[in-house]
């Protein structure tokens, strides 16, 4: 019994160290195995995160290729492929805003015809249709996932095992989008002078550009711009910032805002399981435009009327051109004193050798109202357009015999209708192909009186001397034999909304009254 006990004790001691070493080796092995697996899980997880980040950036970059058709009214703000994208959606809304600002201004001035409201609505609904088409696509998770997969699927996630692959996860919910950088600059610069001051529109600016996601009310509708900070590229944003600005959780009232922030979710799947991750990115087209109605022009119309009076009573009315001509307006008119009278006149002398500038009396007198209206409208085409440019153009354009209409319009040398050169041509000249000179006015005419600036002293002579004269031949009568002419000059302003290209028309109206048989 005793011997048996001793033997048992001895056997236990003999194996004790080996057991301890074996146990330690097993524990060490387990720890190493666990650490090995954890390392691969963390490494694989990091690879998945990197792949999802790259996929988010890819999505933020590729959303710029999503297109909508511009419709008939926004071809001038479309890209060179004829499409509207995130890059030029702000140009679209900008043009719509200008048209509606013009309509609102015309209403304030009492010069809006019923067509003006129709045109304002057409401009708004056209922009809204484009907006909604882009909105639908940019909130389509299936489409966004293809952008994600273009990069993420190519990324290596080999730490999840051989044959591991990465792809978008779109099963559970739609990927949320966000309206980021609210109040920051959009990619549409503007100058306050571009918007008619009497439209009384509260435009919110951010560093020389229209502010993003800040709705602007004009003519009863809301317009907005997508913020794209200057100098930024598509980049990742934090989950916290994204969540605070989600389109579904914190929408912007009155508008269906196109998102500039996109979220993505991807799954890396390997032989032993899968790892998921999400990322958030903001897009930026890195293009900059100015607020404009690119295909817009100003019209200048000259209308000359001769009114023929015999013994103080108008007997005839005719029109005349911008070069001297002779007309017989009074033909064998019976006089109250007996006998008859024939009368003729030399007309169009007031234009002899003149430029268009000198034919516009109010411009020549530096009429601030008319000049301001013309400059403002042309600034809707080119924000840098100035009064001096306008006068230079008008001085450069000589009156062309037989032509009574002239157009001031932009010429574009860039593919995207930016930075135009402003030109002037008679209606018979070589005009751009896009220009449709015939239009239906949506504003009514109003006489703009010549008002010299306060303190400017007497106005300078409006034009070189030259006057219309009349002569009469009395048949069977000697009296009354007096005759004379008077010239009445007026400049009339007809504002237009610009939806159909014409932004307004100045009408230079000359009325020559020809008096015959006066005492």
């Amino acid at each position: 019994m005793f011997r048996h006990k001793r033997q048992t004790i001895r056997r236990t001691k003999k194996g004790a160290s080996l057991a301890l070493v074996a146990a330690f080796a097993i524990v060490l092995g387990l720890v190493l195995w666990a650490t090995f697996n954890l390392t691969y899980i963390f490494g694989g997880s990091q690879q998945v995160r990197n792949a999802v980040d790259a996929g988010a950036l890819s999505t933020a970059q590729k959303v710029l290729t999503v297109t909508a058709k511009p419709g008939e009214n926004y071809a001038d703000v479309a890209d060179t492929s004829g499409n509207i994208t995130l890059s030029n959606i702000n140009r679209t809304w900008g043009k719509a805003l200008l048209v509606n600002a013009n309509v609102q201004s015309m209403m304030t001035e009492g010069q809006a015809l019923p067509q003006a409201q129709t045109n304002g609505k057409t401009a708004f609904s056209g922009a809204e249709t484009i907006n909604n088409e882009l909105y639908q696509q940019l909130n389509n998770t299936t489409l966004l996932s293809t952008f994600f997969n273009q990069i993420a699927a190519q990324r290596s996630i080999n730490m999840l095992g051989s044959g591991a692959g990465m792809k978008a996860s779109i099963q559970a919910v739609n990927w949320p989008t966000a309206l980021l950088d609210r109040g920051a600059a959009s990619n549409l610069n503007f100058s306050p002078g571009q918007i008619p001051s009497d439209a009384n529109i509260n435009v919110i600016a951010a560093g020389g550009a229209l502010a993003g996601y800040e709705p602007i009310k004009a003519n009863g509708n809301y317009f907005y711009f997508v913020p794209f900070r200057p100098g930024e590229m598509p980049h990742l944003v934090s989950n916290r910032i994204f969540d605070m600005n989600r389109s579904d959780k914190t929408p912007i009232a009155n508008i269906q805002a196109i998102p500039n922030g996109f979220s993505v979710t991807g799954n890396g799947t390997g032989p032993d399981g899968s790892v998921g991750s999400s990322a958030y990115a903001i897009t930026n087209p890195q293009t900059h435009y100015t607020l404009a109605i690119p295909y817009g022009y100003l019209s200048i119309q000259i209308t000359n009327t001769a009114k023929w009076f015999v013994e103080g009573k108008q007997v005839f009315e005719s029109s005349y051109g911008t070069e001297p001509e002779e007309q017989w307006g009074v033909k064998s008119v019976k006089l109250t004193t007996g006998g008859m009278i024939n009368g003729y006149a030399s007309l169009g002398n007031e234009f002899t050798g003149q430029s268009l500038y000198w034919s516009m009396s109010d411009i020549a007198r530096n009429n601030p109202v008319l000049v301001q209206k013309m400059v403002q409208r042309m600034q809707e085409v080119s924000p840098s357009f100035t009064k001096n440019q306008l006068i230079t153009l008008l001085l450069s354009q000589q009156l062309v015999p037989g032509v009574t209409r002239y157009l001031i319009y932009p010429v574009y040398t860039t593919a995207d209708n930016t930075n135009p050169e402003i030109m002037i041509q008679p209606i018979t000249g070589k005009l751009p192909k896009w220009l449709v000179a015939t239009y239906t006015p949506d504003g009514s005419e109003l006489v703009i009186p010549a008002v010299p600036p306060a303190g400017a002293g007497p106005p300078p002579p409006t034009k070189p001397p030259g006057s219309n004269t009349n002569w009469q031949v009395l048949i069977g009568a000697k009296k009354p034999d007096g005759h004379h002419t008077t010239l009445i000059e007026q400049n009339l302003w007809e504002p237009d909304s610009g939806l159909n290209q014409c932004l307004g028309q100045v009408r230079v109206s000359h009325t020559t009254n020809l008096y015959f048989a006066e005492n």
Partner: protein
Amino acid sequence: MRTNRGTSLIEVLAGMLVIIPIGLASVNFYTVVIGSQINNRLVEDAARSAAMQLGSNNAESAARQTVDGFQYQAPVINVAMTDFNYNVNSQQVLVGTTLTLNMPVPIMNWSTVTLHATAIEPIVAIPAPL
């Protein structure tokens, strides 16, 4: 008693013959893992730098600058950019880097290890078409 002590010693030594190589191998293994993570981060940074450049030359020089600016710390002895492909059509840039490590425990002339990693990033510097 003497016999017992000797037995334990032999047992411990025998155990150590197993445990020590495992331990040393695991030191090497973690060095490789850490090196791999460093290389992944480096290639990611290089690809991101390249993706923010317009033009292949600018992008390559940005990626190279990132790789050249690597702060060496033991056991890393060399990093290099080995692949570069700036594809404007697909708007993607691919960067590949290698990272060479000194193994802390050289086993059978296995004194250095070279790790390779690639990263593909979208070229975010390309503006939207006009």
